[in-house]
C-alpha cells in the first residue's frame, strides 16, 4: 500500500505525469478501438431489431454511452476539483479543466442523438422532459465552468473558483438522476440498473456495454492528449519543457 502511495506521489509532478500520459495514450486508444469495433458490429448487425422500435433503437449504441459519459466525466471533474480544494494539488485542477470540454461535447452529442431518436419515436424533436432538461442544464454547467475559467485572468484564482463551482454544481447530478421519478416524464426509465436483471436482452446489452467501455477508453485517450497539452502550456517557462520542445524540434 505504501509503495502504491509513493508511486502516486511520484506521479504527482507535472513532468512525470506528462510522460505517464504519453505512455498510456496508445493503450487507451487501442483498446477503445477494439471495444468500439465490437460494439458497433454487435450493435448494428448482430443484435436483433427491437419489437417496438425496429431498427430505430440502434441509436442507443451512441446515445447511451454519450449520456453516461457526460455525467461520468462531470463526476470525475467534481472528484478532482474536491481533491484540488482539499489538498491543493495543482495537477488535479489541471485534469478537471482538461476533461471538461470533452464532457461538454458528449453532453451535446447525447442531446443531439436523443433528439434525432425522439422525432420518429415520440414525434417531437424536443420536449421539456426531466432528463432532457437536466442534460441541457448539465451542458450549461459545463459551459459555465469553462466560461468562468477563461473569464478570470488570474489563473490560480480561476482554478479555485471553478473548483467551487464544480462541487456546487454536483448537487445537480442527483437531481438529474432522481428527476425521472420526481417529475412526470416521457423518457423511459434506465435500461441498465446495477441491481436486478436488466430490462434488455443479452445480445443487445453486450454491444452496449462494450460501446460504453470503448467510449470511456476513448475519453481517457483524448484526456491524455489534452492533459499533456495543458501541462506544456502551463509550464512553458520551466526548463524541462524547453528541453523537450528543443528535442522535438531537432527530430523534425
Amino acid at each position, binding site marked *: 500500500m505504501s509503495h502504491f502511495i509513493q508511486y502516486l506521489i511520484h506521479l504527482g509532478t507535472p513532468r512525470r505525469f506528462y510522460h505517464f500520459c504519453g505512455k498510456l495514450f496508445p493503450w487507451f486508444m487501442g483498446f477503445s478501438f477494439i471495444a468500439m469495433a465490437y460494439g458497433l458490429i454487435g450493435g448494428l448487425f448482430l443484435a436483433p431489431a427491437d419489437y417496438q422500435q425496429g431498427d430505430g433503437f440502434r441509436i442507443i449504441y451512441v446515445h447511451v454511452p454519450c449520456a453516461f459519459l457526460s455525467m461520468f466525466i462531470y463526476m470525475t471533474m467534481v472528484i478532482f476539483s474536491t481533491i484540488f480544494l482539499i489538498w491543493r494539488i495543482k495537477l488535479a485542477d489541471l485534469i478537471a479543466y482538461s476533461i471538461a470540454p470533452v464532457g461538454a461535447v458528449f453532453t451535446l452529442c447525447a442531446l443531439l442523438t436523443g433528439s434525432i431518436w425522439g422525432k420518429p419515436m415520440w414525434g417531437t424533436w424536443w420536449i421539456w422532459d426531466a432528463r432532457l432538461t437536466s442534460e441541457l442544464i448539465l451542458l450549461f454547467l459545463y459551459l459555465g465552468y469553462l*466560461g468562468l475559467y477563461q473569464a478570470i485572468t*488570474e489563473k490560480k484564482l480561476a482554478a479555485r473558483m471553478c473548483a467551487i463551482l464544480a462541487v456546487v454544481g454536483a448537487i*445537480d447530478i442527483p437531481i438529474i438522476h432522481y428527476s425521472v421519478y420526481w417529475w412526470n416524464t416521457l423518457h423511459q426509465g434506465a435500461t441498465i440498473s446495477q441491481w436486478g436483471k436488466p430490462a434488455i436482452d443479452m445480445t443487445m446489452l453486450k454491444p452496449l456495454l462494450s460501446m460504453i467501455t470503448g467510449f470511456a477508453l476513448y475519453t481517457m485517450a483524448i484526456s491524455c492528449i489534452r492533459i499533456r497539452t495543458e501541462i506544456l502550456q502551463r509550464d512553458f517557462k520551466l526548463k524541462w519543457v524547453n528541453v523537450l520542445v528543443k528535442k522535438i524540434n531537432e527530430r523534425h
Partner: protein
Amino acid sequence: MLKVFCRCFFSDLYVVFRSTREWLSPVLFFMIFVALFGIGLGFDGQQLIQISPMIIWVAFLLTSLFTTESIFRADLEEGILEQLALSPYPLWWLLLAKSFAFWIASSLPLMLLMPFVGIMMQLPVKEIILLVVTLFLGSPAITMVGVLGATLTITLPRSGIFLGILLLPLYVPILILGQSAIINLFSQTLPLFQIALLGAISLLCITLIPHAAAAALKTAMNE
C-alpha cells in the same frame, strides 16, 4: 456570535433601505416585466390564468438575477469585504447575515407585492396564496445561489450576462418545483410534496452555500 450576526444584518439592512433606488428598482423591474406580459397577452383572461403563475416565477428569477450583480459591488469598492475577511468571526456566518439582509431587501418586497400582481394577472385567491408560499420557500435558495454567483465572479469587472449562464443551471430545479406545484393545484391536488422539496432545497442552500461563498471570497481577497 448571534450579536455579530444581528449587527451585520441590521447595518446591511439600514444601508439598503436608506438608498431608495437600491430596493425600489428591482421592484419596478418586476412590475414592468409582469405588466408587459399582461399587456402583451391582451384580454384573453383564461389564457392569462393558465400561464401567469409561470410568468411571475420567471419574472422573480430574472429580477433576482438582475440584482445579484450588485450584492457585493458597494462592499467591494469600500473595502468592507476585506474587513469582513479579516474579522475574527467566521466569514460564512457574516455572509449568512448579509445574505439574509439581502433576501429581506430584494425578495420580501416582491412577495408583499404578490397579492396585487396576482389580481392584475386575474389569479384566484388560492393560487395567489400558493404562489406566495412557494416563492417564500424557494426564494432563500435563489438568494443564496445568487450570493454564490456574486462571490465567484467578484473579480470580474462586468459579470452581467455571464452570471446568467452561471446561475441558470442552479435556478432550474427551483423553477421546476415551483411550476409543478402550480400545475398540481390546477388539477385540484395540494402540492405538499413540491412545497416540502422547495423548503428542503432552501435549507440545503442556507447551510452549504455560505461555506462555499466564504471559501470563494477568501480566495479572491488573497489574490
